[in-house]
Every structure is written in C-alpha cells, then in structure tokens.
C-alpha cells in the first residue's frame, strides 16, 4: 500500500524541557482524507509543522509523498499545499496577484501559471473576484482563495488546518464539497479540525494525538466501535455483588457530597455510559411519568428542558428505545416527537484524550511518589 505520509519516531522537544511530539509513528494512506485530531497543545500543530518542513524534528523523521523531510525538504515542499490557519494570503494583494505570487515561488512557467490559476479559480468559483483585494473578501472567499493558492503547483497532499472555522453553515458545505472533489481528483487531504461532525463526514481515517503521542487511529466507525467495546469490557469487569453493595452505600450517602457520590458511582462500573441519547416530546407529561422514567434501570440522567423536551441517556441495545417508549405510552404519555443520537466521534475524542491525560497525570503522580 502506498502511503502519503509516514512518520518514524517523529519527536520534537522545545527548549530541552517540553516534549511536544513524542516518538510519533503514523501512516496516512495515499489519496484518502485523513482527520488529524487532538486537543489544544497535544502536538498536532507541531507535527504539521514538521511534516510541512517549517521546523526540524529533534529526532526521528517522516516521509511525505515518499520524500524525507530531513533529506529532501524542497521536494516535500513541492508536493504539499497548506490552507490556513497557519498560513495566510497577503491581504493587500488581489486574489490573482496572490495566486500568481505563489505560482512564481513554485517556479511555474508563465503560461501554466495563468491557465492553472484561471482553472482553479473557476473550480472554486472565485474567478469573478480575482481582482478584489483579499482583505475585502468574506471568510469563505478567503478560504477559497487560499485553496487556489495552495493548489497552484498541483500538490499531492493538501493540509487543511481548521478550514471551516468561523464560516457559516452554507459556506461550510461548499468547502466540504470542495474537499471531497479534491480528494476524488487524487489529492490526499490532511484535515485538522475540532469540528467532529466535519471529520466524521469527510474523513476515511482518523488519528487522535494526545500528550504528543498517537492515542488512536482508525476509521471513524472503527474508533466508535472500539470505544463501545472498551466500555462494555470495563463494565463487565465489575462484580455484580460489589455493584449491589455500592448501590446500597450510595443510597445512604448524602447526595450533596458530590465527591463521595462520584467515587462510589465510578466504582460501580456504571460510568454513565452516554452511549445513546434519547430525546422525546410528550404533550401531556407529568411528575409521575418522569419518576417512572427515572426508575427505569436502562435510563440515566433524565433532564427536562425549558422547551418541554425530555432527554435521557439510555444503554445502547436494540431494545432499549422501544422499552422506554412503551413505558411512556403505558403511562398514558402522548409522544409528539422522538430523536436518538448514537455515540459520536466527539465521544470518542473526549474519551481518548481524557484517558491519555489521566494516564499522563497518574504517571506524574507515580513519579512524584
């Protein structure tokens, strides 16, 4: 299999005391859309900077489009393009001037420069604004212009860093379509984003970095499946007798003592699974109905919203939704709408990064002890 990006123990240490990227090993399949995720300060940006030859690794290396970032940085630069946030166009130049400037910096012949710039501007539908100053453009237009400038040399790999941040939903969709189109044209896309919906929608593979390490890598569905499997495994490890005893202790515990409640519930293996969210509108809801819902063993965290909607977390099984709905109807509830939300990539992200953070903190504590 051909890989667009391969990293080999890629490491970056700042000032000899801050390990931003810790021996990262990762492979991105060629011609795919790869979601590169991580919380702020996880080492994502530093990794991107190393892959785009803006900074040198402290140790290890990486191959981008088959070229080593240490040995052939200029070949790497010729094969990549990048769209903000790290990179921006000159606001006081027009779209066309910016694009032509980039073309000349990539050494494109004059005729190719003009034809390709026109072609790309047509493709992203910005040709009509080619003589406008970039600073006069809207956010979405700027992103489109930036995409054109980044594609002028026909890079094999395009890095998109938060490409839709601050954009309205319509413009977001236009850019998403563009990303898919570019990918179908053979470009490998590296998408850095905090918008999990965007990543889930577009990406073939997802890598999550945390504490400078690759904490998870799979397809979006693969990551969700793994998370569900892990949670089920964790819960099955709890002895039912212990769980029952803890439940009794919990009943006798002062509900205001949140620390104690948290500790007990944590050990009960319940963990508020949050595997599926059920949302219902009941036109004739009453106190008794809510109490009934709260008493169901498969239901957790029943919340009545100001809009009248009731949301609750339910266990992720085939029967759980129908069981809750049947129960409401049995108690005379008139359901006007139902919606469910499955575990999302965001849940995976939160779980993976929290776990890594916790492990790192425990590591620090152990070290301290």
């Amino acid at each position: 299999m051909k890989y667009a990006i391969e990293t080999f123990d890629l490491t970056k240490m700042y000032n000899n005391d801050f390990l931003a990227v810790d021996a990262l090993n990762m492979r991105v399949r060629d011609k795919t859309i790869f979601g590169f995720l991580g919380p702020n300060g996880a080492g994502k940006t530093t990794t991107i900077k190393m892959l785009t030859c803006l900074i040198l690794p402290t140790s290890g290396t990486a191959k981008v489009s088959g070229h080593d970032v240490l040995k052939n940085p200029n070949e790497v630069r010729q094969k990549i393009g990048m769209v903000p946030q790290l990179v921006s166009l000159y606001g006081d130049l027009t779209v066309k001037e910016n694009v032509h400037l980039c073309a000349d910096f990539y050494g494109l012949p004059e005729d190719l420069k003009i034809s390709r710039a026109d072609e790309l501007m047509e493709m992203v539908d910005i040709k009509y604004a080619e003589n406008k100053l970039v600073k006069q453009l809207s956010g979405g237009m700027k992103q489109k212009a930036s995409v054109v400038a980044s594609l002028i040399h026909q890079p094999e790999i395009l890095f998109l860093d938060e490409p839709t941040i601050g954009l309205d939903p319509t413009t977001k969709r236009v850019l998403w379509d563009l990303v898919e189109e570019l990918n179908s044209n053979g470009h490998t896309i590296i998408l850095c984003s905090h918008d999990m919906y965007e990543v889930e929608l577009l990406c073939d593979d997802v890598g999550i970095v945390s504490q400078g390490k690759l904490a998870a890598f799979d397809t979006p569905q693969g990551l969700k499946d793994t998370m569900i499997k892990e949670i089920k495994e964790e819960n099955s490890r709890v002895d039912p007798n212990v769980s029952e005893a803890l439940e009794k202790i919990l009943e006798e515990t002062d509900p205001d003592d949140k620390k104690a409640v948290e500790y007990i519930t944590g050990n009960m293996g319940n963990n508020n699974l949050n595997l599926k969210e059920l949302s219902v509108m009941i036109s004739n809801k009453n106190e008794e109905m809510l109490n009934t819902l709260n008493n169901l063993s498969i239901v957790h965290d029943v919340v009545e919203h100001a809009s009248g909607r009731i949301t609750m977390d339910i266990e992720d099984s085939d029967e759980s939704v129908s069981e809750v709905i049947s129960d409401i109807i049995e108690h005379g509830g008139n359901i006007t709408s139902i919606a469910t939300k499955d575990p999302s990539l965001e849940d995976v992200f939160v779980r993976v990064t929290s776990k890594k953070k916790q492990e790192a903190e425990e590591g620090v504590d152990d070290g301290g002890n």
Partner: protein
Amino acid sequence: MMVETKKIMWMFKKDLLVLWRHPPRLISILLFPIIMITLFGYGMGGTLENIPVVVVEQSHGQVTDATLSAIKGMSLYDVKDIITDPDKGKEMVQNGQVKAAIILPANYDNMSSTQPKSVVVDVDSSDQMASSAVVPATQALFNQISNNIGLQKLDTMNLTPSGASASNIQVQSNQVAAAPQGINFQNVMDSINLQINKMYGDIKYIDFLVPAVIGMTVLFGCMFGMGDALAGERERGELARLFMTPTSIATVVGGKIISKLSIEIVRALILIGAAIILFGIAIKGSMILTLLVLILGALCFVGFGVMISARVSTQEDYMQMVMPITMPMMFVSGVFYPIETMPWIFQKLAYIFPLTYVNDALRAVMLKGVGVGAIWIDIAVLLGFTALFFALGVRGFNRDI
C-alpha cells in the same frame, strides 16, 4: 537564477503595491522626513562643554603658562594635547581628533615687542555646534588676555590708567584716554591679533543637522519597516506561505532587503531634496558617495532588523526589542550634539552604535567634502556591523511560524 530574480522582484513588487494601497502609510513616508528636518531645524538648542581642542605652543614663558591655565580653566574646552607643531594641530582638526587647534605664535612671550601677536584658531566648522561655541568663547578669552598683556606693558611703562590694574580683566582699551605723546595705546592694548580660521567655511546648525537627520530617518525607516516586513508578516502567517514553497530563507529575506533599501533610498533623496529647497543646504562632497554611505547605513540597519526579526514571532515583540536600542542610539550618536561634548559614558556607548559612523561619514562627505579615503574607518566599521548583523540574522532565522 531567472526564477530567483522573479521571486525577488515579486517581493519588491508586493511591497510597493502594499505601500500604494495604504495612502496614510505612503503619505507618512513622504512627509516624515520633511517634518523631522523642520522640527529639528527650528527647534533645537543647548549648551556645550568639553569640546576637544589642541593647543600649539611655540614659545615658553609666563604669558603662555597663563594662557594655557586660562584655557584649561574653561569648562568649554577639553585640552586633549599641547604640542609645538602648528601643522600637526591643523591635521588633528582635519582628522576629527579635536574640534579646534589654538595656535600660539612664536613671539607670544615676547613682552618687549609692540607688534600684535597673531594667535590662529583653526576650527572644524563642519561641526557647527562646536564651532559656534568655540569661536566667541575663544575671542572673549584672547580679548581678556590681550588686555592683560597691554596693562602689564603699561604697568612697565608706568602708564596704567586710573582704576585699572594688570589684574583687572574688565579694563577696556578706550579707557586709556590720556595717551602720552609717542605711545600708541591702541597698539599696546591690542597686543593679540586673533585670527579665526573656519576650515570648512561658515556652516549653519541646519547644515550640521541635515546629514545626521538623514541618517536617523534611514535608521527609523529601516528598523521599524523591518518589523512589519518580517515580524509582522510572520505573525500574520503571510511569510509562512512563502516558506512553505521550495524557496531559501536567503531569497525571501533578500527580496525584503531590496524592497526596503529601495524605499529608504527614495526617502533619503526626498529628505536631501527638502533640505536643499527649504534650507539651502549644499553638499560639498560627492552626491554618489553620500548615497553610497546612506545605502551602506540602510543595509546595516536592515541587517539589524533581520537579526531581531529572527528572534521574535510577533511585530509587537519586535518593536519592544527595537525601541530601547533605537532611542538611545538617536541621542548618543551625535545627531544633535557632537559626541565629544557628551558625558564619557555616552561617548563610549556612541561607538557601539552604527548610527555614529553613518553620521560621521555623512557629515564628512556633505560638509567637509572629503572622499572615501577620509571616511574609510566609518565604512569599514559599518561593513563589519552589517556582516555581523546578517550573519546572526540569517543564521537565527527559521521557517517556523
């Protein structure tokens, strides 16, 4: 090579386009030199002390000792040396070692002669501040000495006017009213003939100021301009796009330098033109040499800007680093006052600032009309500074954003 030229031209073109599209910035560039020269031309003044002088004594005696003692006693002078060769004294002025050479004649201690003693003061008139202080003070001093010598002579002749004595320096020659026949009192009292030799002619303060203000304007233009050109573009992510292309750091920085230099040369030309039109300034030396010194100075300051830019990631940081250097540089590099008249610590400090050498070279070319041979030290030091700044700057520059 063709591609590199195109890239450099793009850097140049881009900066010009940006300038054209920012009318306030463009107006500021054009008006700032005129405002500077007008403000400083009309607004400056001050008191000078410790002006370096050399005294040439060609005889020994009571009068010479008394004269030396009087010169040393004045805070205006800082007597650097007492020599015997008048030519060497003149040479020291020409070399810039001292601002004036006070040359006492060979007959200075001869009290029996009735002929006036010719004291010559060779003064470096290119330093208008120093010469405007030295000339009247020296005239007053030798007027007093002349009177004292006259009174001593009259004492010897027993012809002292009433109320006056040899020690009374207030005596005026017209007080000697009743002159006995056969004696020319005027000749006796005017026993010293002071000859002021302004080596570079009459030079006004504005003439003295213009070269330094040009140097200072170039300094500020380059230093602050580089803040936007490198640190600002780095901060906005514009530089990152260029650094992501297969282009060397030297090419990007080279393009920036060329565009900045071109703009600064235009500013300098405007400044010189404004000084000529508004204040009638004349450039005695070569215009080309003047421009070459300016270009070298600009290159040096741009190098300084590159060196600082290499170490900061924002324009704000850049300004914070540059301000504490540029402001003292402006005040101690002899823009407004001769360096020699400043406190010793400032004098030492002045020699580590490139602006000092730019000012010195520009004044020498513009006011004294000298050639490269007379300013080679300034040029060598500036070249050294430039090489050092660029070496540190390009070495420390990275593509990180």
